[in-house]
């Protein structure tokens, strides 16, 4: 878990730096500071379990097992990307690793994840479906419909709110009637917990409970994982709606430092070992960047490929000519 968080931290830093210098196409949202949510939850999952993400999903994909090379190539829009360069930052998909896809529409993944959960149930597997969404998605009506339906149908669904306290620039408490979405567990008759998501052990424990319940057939859970993003909402956001002191106070509670200190205090890791993992994570991301840079751009004539089924493609091509 320590290594995975560092890999995400380094990958996000590279993505941020490149996007900031205008080298990545499209909008880029990084999860620096929120790594414990992705890693804490995905560490409880198996390959066959499925994940649906948001516009801020590089970390979920990496934590679910997608390769850093394929993610980085996707961010750069290259042929070796996990979506062959068609998706970019906000659509990191790797079905082979159970990363079903991400949607940049706020709350758009919630219905998809319930569909995946229904599929797991109808196929009589004990796989679980995880939906990561932001605190902003709590304002979407579909969230409450799914909460009700998932409870009634006892779907094996983990609703994980990656709660960084801000819906873009709006502090969630300004627009949210309840103090934590985990409070909704009781009226909807499911299990829920609010966790300090800068402590990965708390996230892991809650996710284990939720996943075990789902696998046993006890239905969905909702986790309110409270954390903080260290960067703006996306690259380009100067973040002037929050104070430097607030940001600094959250940086003091770095989830990666927290786990390192925990492991070192118990002598499960020493400084040299931690430094080595740090170096290896950096090297892995540097390798991913150079791999992605050497991957070709998709050819323009490929633009229609993989977008539609072949008959529809033919119609489009006829229309074009």
């Amino acid at each position: 878990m320590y290594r995975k968080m560092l890999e995400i931290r380094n990958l996000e830093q590279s993505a941020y730096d490149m996007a900031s210098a205008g080298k990545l196409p499209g909008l880029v949202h990084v999860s620096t500071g929120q790594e414990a949510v992705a890693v804490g939850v995905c560490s409880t999952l198996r390959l066959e379990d499925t994940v649906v993400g948001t516009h801020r999903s590089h970390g979920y994909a990496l934590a679910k097992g997608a390769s850093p090379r394929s993610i980085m190539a996707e961010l750069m829009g290259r042929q070796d990307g996990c979506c062959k360069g068609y998706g970019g930052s906000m659509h990191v998909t790797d079905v082979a690793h159970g990363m079903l896809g991400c949607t940049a529409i706020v709350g758009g993944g919630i219905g998809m994840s319930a569909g995946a959960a229904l599929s797991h149930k109808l196929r009589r597997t004990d796989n679980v479906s995880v939906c990561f969404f932001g605190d902003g998605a709590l304002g979407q009506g579909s969230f409450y419909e799914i909460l009700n339906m998932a409870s009634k149908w006892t779907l094996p669904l983990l609703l994980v709110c990656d709660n960084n306290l801000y819906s873009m620039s709006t502090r969630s408490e300004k627009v949210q009637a309840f103090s934590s979405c985990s409070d909704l567990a009781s009226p909807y008759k499911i299990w829920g917990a609010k966790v300090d998501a800068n402590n990965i052990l708390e996230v892991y424990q809650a996710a284990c409970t939720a996943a075990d319940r789902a696998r046993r057939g006890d239905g969905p859970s909702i986790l309110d994982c409270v954390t903080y993003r260290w960067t703006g909402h996306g690259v380009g956001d100067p973040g002037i709606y929050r104070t430097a002191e607030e940001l600094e106070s959250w940086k003091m509670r770095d989830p990666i430092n927290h786990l390192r200190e925990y492991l070192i205090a118990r002598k499960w890791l020493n400084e040299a070992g931690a430094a080595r993992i740090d170096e290896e994570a950096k090297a892995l991301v540097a390798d991913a960047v150079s791999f992605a840079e050497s991957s070709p751009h998709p050819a323009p004539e490929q633009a229609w490929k993989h977008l539609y089924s072949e008959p529809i493609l033919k119609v489009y091509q006829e229309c074009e000519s």
Partner: protein
Amino acid sequence: MPANIVMPKVGGYDMESATLLRWLKREGDPLQTGEPIAEVESAKAVIELPSPHTGTLLRALVAEGTDVPVGTILAVVALAGERI
């Protein structure tokens, strides 16, 4: 090897360029990572640009008041420990 400071995309999701309003550091000044080095103005905001490096400001390449595209090299920095 000296490092570059480029005009970052900091002032709006669709920012394509920004004006370097004022240098807050002079050539030869020491820099700390995160320390403001210049003030830039995009179409949407005025932002203090934090230094991405610790070292010494070798050359400021863009004159105050100039509008430059994202990715333009603004300055060259000798990294900490580097001989100038």
